[in-house]
């Protein structure tokens, strides 16, 4: 429980502290507390591993009066992954976003916003209360929008505004569903909603909340805001936005469809969700193929990679939840979330290094950089392996589990998309890799400290390691996994 409170509050405490500190003390404090949070996340995962889900009724008030927090295996895994990504981003940002490189405004603004984003993520991962989730997601969105706007260019501001409009519309749709849920059941707690007396308005409530969350998760056709926003932010911010932020709203979708209202998961609705995911995989991949800037390629890749997550719905949701393949599908999607987080953060951080070195991320300008910055090129290639779903990587484990379940469930079209999406990913990631490894040596590149270059390499290696050591996270993800539909016949 204490680890849970630390994970929940330390980012907030640090954010408030950073606002009061002189500029010199900022980075050391953030790095020290990031390390502490990583440790606390490890302690929390260990506690969940040994003792099952950790719960906390905030203020001592049990639902429906109060708000319950709960760390199950999934929350613990996401908290751990986020802590690693955040820590890495902080390490990279201390080189990249120094006041003398980017000015006092960005040098100041990034840190508290990053910490508030972190606090919001952990709050969302842990919360079991629909309205508390709303507040958490709003905090997340505001911090994320501000990070997009951080660079201050006209394109970044327009991207931030477009993001803001989608995020606000999504919040309001979600809020409408929350209002209906409370209006019909007098509770906002996910656990209590699971045992509610069904009402006619439940389907509308679930539909509204889902639509709102889809807009925030940038599922096709709500994806248009994502690429300019993620590509327009400074690279460390892009890493956070792409790797972590969509996972939070996705997690709420999982909580709704698997825990709060699994009885409403009709086959058709689940199919629509997965079909949108499949279109996202293809469409995001095709658009990534025609981009000319590295950050845009990586951002469109996020649109595609998020699509895979939605295969969880028909494979493990609704009637499927009681089937033998549900565990594989569920875990596969979560592995995708985890490994995409690590690999995508690594990719954006490498993009940041390239921009710092040559001032551009156009593919034509990147030619030959693998020779100048070999570690960074290697990191990008490793991360690409995960995104392509090639073994041995976390992305491969995810794909393997999802494909196996798709076959077992007789829903082979998803497997086809998984296989085709991998080839598409290989195609769109090949272009930057080929450019990096091209012959022309970059002479004008500014030197990049080796410690900075090591950061994305570590993240990318972690995304590979996730595949080699997948047994432990696999078992962790099973802890507190929503049980198959109430077996009480």
């Amino acid at each position, binding site marked *: 429980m204490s680890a849970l*409170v630390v994970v929940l509050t330390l980012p907030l405490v640090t954010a408030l502290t950073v606002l*009061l500190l002189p500029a010199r003390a900022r980075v050391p404090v953030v790095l020290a507390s990031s390390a502490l949070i990583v440790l606390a996340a490890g302690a929390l995962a260990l506690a969940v591993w040994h003792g099952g889900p950790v719960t906390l009724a905030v203020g001592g008030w049990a639902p429906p009066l109060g708000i319950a927090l709960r760390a199950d295996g999934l929350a613990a895994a996401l908290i751990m992954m986020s802590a690693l990504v955040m820590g890495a981003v902080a390490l990279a940002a201390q080189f990249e976003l120094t006041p003398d490189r980017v*000015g006092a405004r960005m040098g100041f*603004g990034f840190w508290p*916003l990053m910490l508030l984003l972190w*606090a919001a993520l952990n709050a969302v991962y842990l919360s079991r209360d629909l*309205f508390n989730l709303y507040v958490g997601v709003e905090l997340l969105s505001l*911090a994320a929008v501000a990070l997009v706007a951080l660079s201050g260019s006209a394109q970044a501001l327009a991207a931030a505004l477009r993001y803001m409009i989608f995020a606000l519309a999504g919040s309001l749709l979600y809020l409408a569903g929350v209002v209906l849920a409370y209006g*019909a*059941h007098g509770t906002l707690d996910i656990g209590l909603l699971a045992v509610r007396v069904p009402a006619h308005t439940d389907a509308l409530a679930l539909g509204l909340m889902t639509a709102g969350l889809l807009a925030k998760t940038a599922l096709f056709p709500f994806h248009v805001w994502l690429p300019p926003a993620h590509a327009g932010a400074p690279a460390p911010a892009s890493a956070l936005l792409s790797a972590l932020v969509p996972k939070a709203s996705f997690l709420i979708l999982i909580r709704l469809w698997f825990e709060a209202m699994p009885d409403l998961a009709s086959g058709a609705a689940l199919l629509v969700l997965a079909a949108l995911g499949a279109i996202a995989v293809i469409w995001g991949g095709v658009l990534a193929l025609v981009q000319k800037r590295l950050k845009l390629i990586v951002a469109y890749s996020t649109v595609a990679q998020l699509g895979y997550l939605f295969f969880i719905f028909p494979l493990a949701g609704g009637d499927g939840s009681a089937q033998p393949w549900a565990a594989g599908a569920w875990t596969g999607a979560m592995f995708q979330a985890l490994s995409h987080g690590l690999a995508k953060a690594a990719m954006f951080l490498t993009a940041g290094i390239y921009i710092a070195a040559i001032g551009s991320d156009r593919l034509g300008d990147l030619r030959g950089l693998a020779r100048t910055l070999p570690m960074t090129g290697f990191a990008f290639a490793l991360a690409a392996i995960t995104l392509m779903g090639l073994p041995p990587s976390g992305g491969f484990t995810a794909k393997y589990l999802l494909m196996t379940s798709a076959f077992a469930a007789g829903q082979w079209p998803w497997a086809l998309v998984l296989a085709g999406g991998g080839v598409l990913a290989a195609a769109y990631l090949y272009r930057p890799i080929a450019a990096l490894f091209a012959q022309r040596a970059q002479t004008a590149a500014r030197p990049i400290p080796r410690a900075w270059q090591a950061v994305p390499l570590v993240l990318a290696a972690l995304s590979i390691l996730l595949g080699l050591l997948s047994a432990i996270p696999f078992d962790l993800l099973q802890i507190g996994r929503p049980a198959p539909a109430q077996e009480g016949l």
Partner: protein
Amino acid sequence: MSLALDLALCALILGVALATVAGGGVFRAVIFFITYGLFLAIGWARLGAFDVALAEAAIGAGLTGVLLLAAHARLRRMQAGDAPPPAGLNLPAALAGAGMALALGWAWFALPVPATPDIASALPRSGVGNPVTAVLLNFRAWDTLLESIVLLAALLGVWILARDGDWNAPLGPRYHALSGGVLVNFGRFLPPIGLCFGVYLVWAGADYIGGAFQGGTVLAAVGLVALMANVVRPPRVSYALLRAAVVIGPAVFLLAGLLAAGFGAGFLTLPPALAKSVILVIEAALTISIAVTLALLVIGPPDDAGRSS
């Protein structure tokens, strides 16, 4: 009689809202929007939700209105202040709007009346007499803590919108007030009165109506008037006292929650004997932060250009 009153009120609300959406100029839309908020506040009072009425009047109508007016003024200076609404009806949008309204309307009649959480029996242990305050600062204190952080995030977001060259300039554009004019006199007299009223709202909120948000908003308004009347000077982002004022509310709130956890009571768990005093301390700190943050949100990021022009 009362039904007729409510019908008339709702017709007014809808009419003003329609004018906000369809009205000619953006400026007029903003005025309609403020009027809308005031009518809505009356609606809340009719529903018996006085805390909400106060919040809507102060924040929804008042502060949001000032925010929009200030923005409009700045946009007008950049010749981006106005745009006529597109002619004709946008059919897809109309269908979406009608669909949403119909769905919610249907839901109202389909909605069962559930058992609601038992606040009455928990209220004595909450330390306050006003159930809304009990929910906000005790039962669902985590929501409120996060909400105070949301305000902070918005403020940071607004600040980083400054241009790099303006970062060290005083916050907000310069306000021109005629010396000896109404605003200046207003700005001299209002603050003491508003200060008393705001503090009263926080104090009363514990047991009657009001609270940190409403009180803080009144104080923010006072601060804004004083700023516009040039009675006080806008600070800079780097001003330590300003940062402290913005941070103190969430910090005290968090500290209280963590102290409770440290003493073994659990995160944000207030022992009934101490609850009232702790809540008052938290509210006092929150009021300061809310007041400062709201005022700063309205005046916007540091802007040197507005000053020299």
